């Protein structure tokens, strides 16, 4: 299981939990698992999110491995200029 | 509408062109003569990207009609290098990274050349005020001002 930290207002869509546990070994499994476990998160996941894994930020790499002890933080989709 | 026939000298070459009465010198240079080194950033004389010299006088080519060029001598960025010899300002701008995107660069070079022709030893303040009509959004002007000052110093040493 991977512990995922949600941002504040996202917790409202995940039954109030700021930290949730998902069974996932990759980024794709993580995002799929989040949507399955917390349907309230689906609109935000559909709009796109970024994910910080051990301090590095990932956007779309489905098969980015995630270790069970990784620090995983969901972020709003980052946009630059 | 009848087009106007204009005879002029551009970068030292006798040049004839036909233009509409409302065409600016900038329109003529870019669209009729293919001299696209002179840029349009605003069309209102507020950015200096279209700077050229007319009879040795620095002007915005967007604020002058093409028809007014009759009998005048126009100098644009395309005439600044002599063959494959860059003008010292051109050389120095590259060396000192005084350009980023480069859209304002032709206008700034033409304006800086006009300054150095009049004042071979300008102070930083004089350079900044002379170039105040040439907007640059990339560099913060620092490297541009330094490049002009250094070129002036080099040219003084060389003369």
């Amino acid at each position, binding site marked *: 299981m991977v512990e995922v930290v949600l941002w504040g207002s996202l917790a409202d869509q995940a039954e109030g939990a700021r930290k949730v546990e998902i069974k996932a070994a990759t980024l794709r499994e993580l995002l799929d698992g989040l949507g399955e476990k917390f349907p309230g998160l689906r609109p935000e996941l559909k709009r796109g999110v970024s994910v910080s894994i051990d301090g590095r930020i990932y956007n779309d790499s489905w098969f980015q491995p995630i270790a069970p002890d990784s620090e995983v933080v969901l972020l709003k989709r980052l946009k630059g200029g | 509408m009848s087009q106007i026939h204009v005879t002029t000298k551009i970068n030292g070459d006798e040049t004839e062109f036909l233009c509409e009465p*409302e065409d600016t010198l900038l329109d003529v240079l870019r669209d009729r003569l293919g001299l696209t080194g002179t840029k349009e950033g605003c069309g*209102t*004389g507020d950015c200096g990207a279209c700077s050229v010299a007319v009879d040795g006088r620095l002007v*915005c080519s967007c*604020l002058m*009609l093409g028809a007014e060029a009759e009998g005048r001598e126009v100098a644009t960025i395309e005439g600044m290098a002599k063959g494959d010899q860059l003008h010292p300002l051109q050389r120095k701008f590259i060396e000192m990274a005084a350009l980023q995107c480069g859209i304002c660069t032709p206008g700034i070079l033409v*304006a800086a050349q006009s300054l150095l022709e009049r004042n071979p030893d300008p102070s930083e303040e004089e350079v900044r005020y002379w170039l*105040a009509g040439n907007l640059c959004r990339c560099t913060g002007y620092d490297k541009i001002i330094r490049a002009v000052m250094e070129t002036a110093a080099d040219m003084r040493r060389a003369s």
Partner: protein
Amino acid sequence: MRYEAPLSVEDAVAALAGQSGAHVLAGGTDLLVKLRSEMIEPEVIVDIKRIDGMKDIRAEEGGWRIGAAVSGAEMSEHEALVADWPGVVEAAGLIGSTQVQGRATLAGNLCNASPAADSVPAMVAAGAVARIVGPNGTRDLAVIDVPQGPGKTALEPGEFIASILLPARGQRSGDAYLRFIPRTEMDIAVVGCGISLSLDEEDRVTAARVSLGAVGPKVMLVEKAAEAIKRRVLDEAALDDLAAACSKAATPIDDKRGTVDFRRHVAGVLARRAAVIAVNRAKGDTA
């Protein structure tokens, strides 16, 4: 649209006559912007730069006659003119960039009839007179009377300004023009103030003209400001009175360039500062 570049005043007047959509081109720094933005759609543009005398700066009865096509840069390079009317030359030199200086003219700045035109308060303070030519001959009109409101002038159809006279003035005289802009260059005046004055041997003001720009529908001559300093040495108290008179005379509006309160206040600040420069110049005349 047609473009004409007559060689004589008569031909220019003829070209302008009978054309409702005729515009005079001198430096073109306002005209081409209006043309570009489709604010105007002229039938004909009459370029007066090829007319004899339009590019001349001539001494005349102790003053200077400046042709309608003389650019700000040409004025700045004329040492005798700069020595006599530094305020007017500096004011003209504040219009736009170096590039604009290569083209912009006093007459054009005046005919554009913007209340914020930089050279106009300086010319008004100088007591300058415009020479107007037209279908009915030549007439002289004080610069202050040329603008009639934003974008409106006292010129009749077919008329244009051929030259501007900066009159003679006595010894121990000086002028100055200051404006306030948000940046250091390239802006339109938020407030402008021109002062021309003469001093007696005790440094008392014997004659003064004070003008303000951008604080009303047209450039204004502030008689009360001049009265406030006449017969006085310009000490702090006199400068305070001058500033107060200018702030009081100002009738500005709130717009994208400044607020009413700001413009009133700064009108006084600029008057003070311009007066100090003008006095120093007046003293320098005899130094």
